[in-house]
């Protein structure tokens, strides 16, 4: 049984793109095989990039709730920017690894294909309902699309999707309610939180730039970290995905 949880985004610049994917690594395997290398900033825009708190960021955000602890493996200045998040399961013995892209070529091409379908081919009259589709080549997926209101986005909305992909069709259907409830609750939290952040920002925003500057109306790329006002947002999302994978016995 293999499940992959993916956060996908319809980028205004790059089109359907993968932001983060979480995989389960069996205890018999080495997680290092799944670690993703750092992708140069020039290749990804702000919207598409998986932003993992750097050691310095983490220390800075100490005052805002998170309490990171520094590693003794290297000094902060020597460490490269983190490109992988990992969590060890206390129950299954598996390790859950989140990266921007999967290291496996087959998985990467399958997920690319799935994400392309989610944002272009597969449609539903009710976007609150999940999409379930798949084939024997790319795998079988359940996806829940959601939109985040943002004035700086084209059409004032940013499209995302959380996708759970399995290599077995039966596994997706057998865990339908568990997957769907997790996806729905996560999406619900993200959309609610984003509205709160937007409202809070609107209250605090006393400038009239949006009316005075022409550039203020031009769509801008924006990371979910910014939208959610949480530097550790992707770490939290990784934990949610890990928790779901754990519940799926991965």
């Amino acid at each position, binding site marked *: 049984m293999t499940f992959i949880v993916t956060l996908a985004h319809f980028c205004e610049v790059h089109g359907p793109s993968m932001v983060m994917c979480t995989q389960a690594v069996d205890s018999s395997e080495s997680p290092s095989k799944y670690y993703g290398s750092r992708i140069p900033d020039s290749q990804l825009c702000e919207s598409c990039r998986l932003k993992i708190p750097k050691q310095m960021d*983490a220390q800075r955000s100490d005052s805002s709730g998170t309490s990171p*602890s520094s590693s003794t*493996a290297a000094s902060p200045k020597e460490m490269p920017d983190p490109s992988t998040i990992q969590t060890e399961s206390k129950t299954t013995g598996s390790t859950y690894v989140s990266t921007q892209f999967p290291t496996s070529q087959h998985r990467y091409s399958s997920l690319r294909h799935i994400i392309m379908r989610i944002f272009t081919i597969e449609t539903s009259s009710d976007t609150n309902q999940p999409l379930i589709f798949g084939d*024997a080549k790319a795998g079988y997926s359940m996806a829940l699309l959601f939109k985040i209101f943002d004035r700086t986005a084209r059409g004032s909305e940013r499209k995302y999707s959380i996708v759970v992909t399995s290599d077995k069709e039966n596994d997706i259907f057998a865990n*339908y309610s568990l997957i769907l409830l997790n996806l729905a609750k996560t999406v619900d939290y993200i959309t609610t939180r984003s509205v709160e952040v937007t409202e809070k920002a609107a209250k605090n925003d006393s400038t009239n730039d949006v009316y005075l500057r022409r550039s203020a109306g031009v769509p801008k790329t924006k990371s979910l970290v910014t939208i959610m006002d949480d530097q550790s947002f992707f770490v939290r999302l990784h934990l949610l995905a890990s928790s779901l994978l754990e519940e799926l016995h991965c």
Partner: protein
Amino acid sequence: MFSLDPSFESSSRSSSTSGDDWRPHPSVKANGSPAYENLSTRFSIGVVIPVGRGISSMEEEVTDNWTDISNLLVTIQEVVTEKLKKTYVSQAHRRNCSYNQHSSSVPKMPKVPSVGNLSSCKKMNFSAYILQTDFDLNQQFHSLVRCILLLVETPRLFVALKESNQALISWASAVAAWLELKDGRFFTADPTSPSSEKVSIKPGLKFLASLFSILLPLRKQILEDPMNRSRNKSVRVVIVTGNPIVSQKLIFILAGLIGYDNYVIRASMEAATDDSSSTDDDTQTSTSDETTRDVTASDYGVSFSPTKVLPISIERKLSSQRSSSDSSTPSISPIGRSGSSLLARGWKVPTKSVPIASSSPTVQGLSNVKAERVSIPLLHKETSYASLQNLSSSYGGGMQPQSALGLSSSWRGAFNFGSFMERWKMNNLASRGGFASTSPPRHDFGSIIDRTPSPATDYDEYPWKGSTPGTPLYKTLSREPSSTFSGGSTPTTSETKFGSYGVGISGPSKLSSFNKLFHSYVAKRKFHVQRTATRLISSKVEQSKVIGNKISAIMNADLNFTYTDRGDISVLSVENEEAAPDDDAAPYKLPPLVGYTEKYLPHFSLMSCIQPGNLETSIFESMSEDVRRMDAGSVSDTYVINLRQREVKLFELRSPAQDEYPQPSMSTNFQRSTPNSKLTNDLQRFKLRPKVSLLFSPFLQGKSRYEQQLSNGSTLSVTTSAVDAFDEKLNLISGLINRFFCTQSKRIHPSGSALYTAEDAKGNCADIDEDTCCDKIRELIRTLLG
């Protein structure tokens, strides 16, 4: 979706490009892509399944039945492919002929384009409406709709013997009754029973013990989905009978034992226990609130609540609700979905589809029973066995027309399908005899949706149960026309709890009170389990709340990061502080064991159905489909239990070699027109003919040992010692349950007026309480299961 090219060859996608670490597996193996993808015509089969908005509705109607739906879609795909291929070949033939007429006088055989000349081929063109008007395809679509309907309408069994004392007592009672009345064993604790005088005179059949010895070793395979293509063996058990009541009892006995380890009530599913008012007469006899009654006064301990989703189905009511004194409340039913009405009866073999043409054995039906119908060996007219056989025959007669029509009656019945006479008879029955006193007048012609079925369609108890006060048991057993016989089949409010029997019973009614006690004991502890037709569910609200809390906790947690340097990669490690997921809250899909079905359904591994003329053909066809679906070397077994002949037969079919797979099921006309010659088809059919072995028969019982050499080389041996061992344990179970009821009888009727102060047939009537009795029975069951 699938694609075709002029070669009509398909490649298996899974093996073509997938890597070692990513090998997707579909529910059903199908060649979805054409061999040469550059030139292909695409098709898609669309199915609209109306479901409710709730998750449970989607699970029950689509996801839990997805393998079966996929199977049917793949079959349709195969049929479409064959149809188009045939059309394309004939088109090519015509083109070739017309070309040859101009170029040469020598006709050439038509030829499907090969790889080499694909590029020179034109795109495939077919005439309009070529598939829309096709008979075979229409048939396939019909069968798809019918199948989905039946899957949704046929609830799976849940017999929780492990936890529920109530279910266990009912199960043991059913075993005891079966041994006594169907196998001809006499050890009842009832001293007034006519059979008690004949203790140990006749050995009786060891049908039940033999059945256990055959089926229990296969229980793991029976619990699996017979349509699952990933297996190499599929096993089905089909009980063939004309009497759904008797077969339901046998199904109950078998399912309880086969699924003993699997039917588990988890803590998250259990909603109500320890109902202290279970013996309170007032609360039971005056239950005007049918909702309460349905949920808590289930006859068999585990009651069910259906989910509130409203899918395709039409609402129905329990017929027993009509025994309510309030005739003006036709829609109080807590049931929100079709068939769930019957789920509310606890363990009882749930049948969503109550045949509209079936009816309780009426006065006329019983009096017209002819003794010459009995053709069972070792059968004596004076036994209850004989009366049941006759009952079975007469009952089956009523069922045949229904099955011939192929009606699934739960929703059709609700819409007044069926002939006027059938409906009139059903309505007429309701106001006759025993029903008159308990049934309110029917005013349901105006309301289609709330139409309540006649009690006649809800006949769900042993016919030998003399349930009306004043009717001695022997009168019922000796087939005397009893005006109240059929009336007893419909439980009334006062019959649902055993506590009510202790009041004001004297004289002959004591006997009937024992019978009521025997069949209607209510255990101290009761369960309330939420379920759909396909699974048990923990409260979705709870599950949703747990997940919501988990997400909220993670999103607001203080996270502790650790950074690790792995060469040029930096890894952030974070611990999940949230508690491990609770497996107990996970939904539990029920195994494919069902009760009585109107027709043979290959999707289930245990069922009972009547024996229409084409039952064996249907079984053979499904077995043939099994081996075609599964890989080479696979085996499909069907155990057919014929209750009338008391025979157990094994139909066994081994998969043929790869190149000998039969064509997908299509009409004979189409198969005739396929390129295969008639000889080839006949040969294929011959190779796929299942081997039939007789595993049990009353004729064979006397032999010390008989073996069936199966075609796969394994030997299925049914030894008399094994059967005797099972039989002995079953006898012990019967003895225990009789002792228990004996004790209960003493409790209800204190010394002096007790019904059973004498020893029972085993010479032991020592008191035994519910827990001790159930513990001992469970121990015996564990030894039965090995």
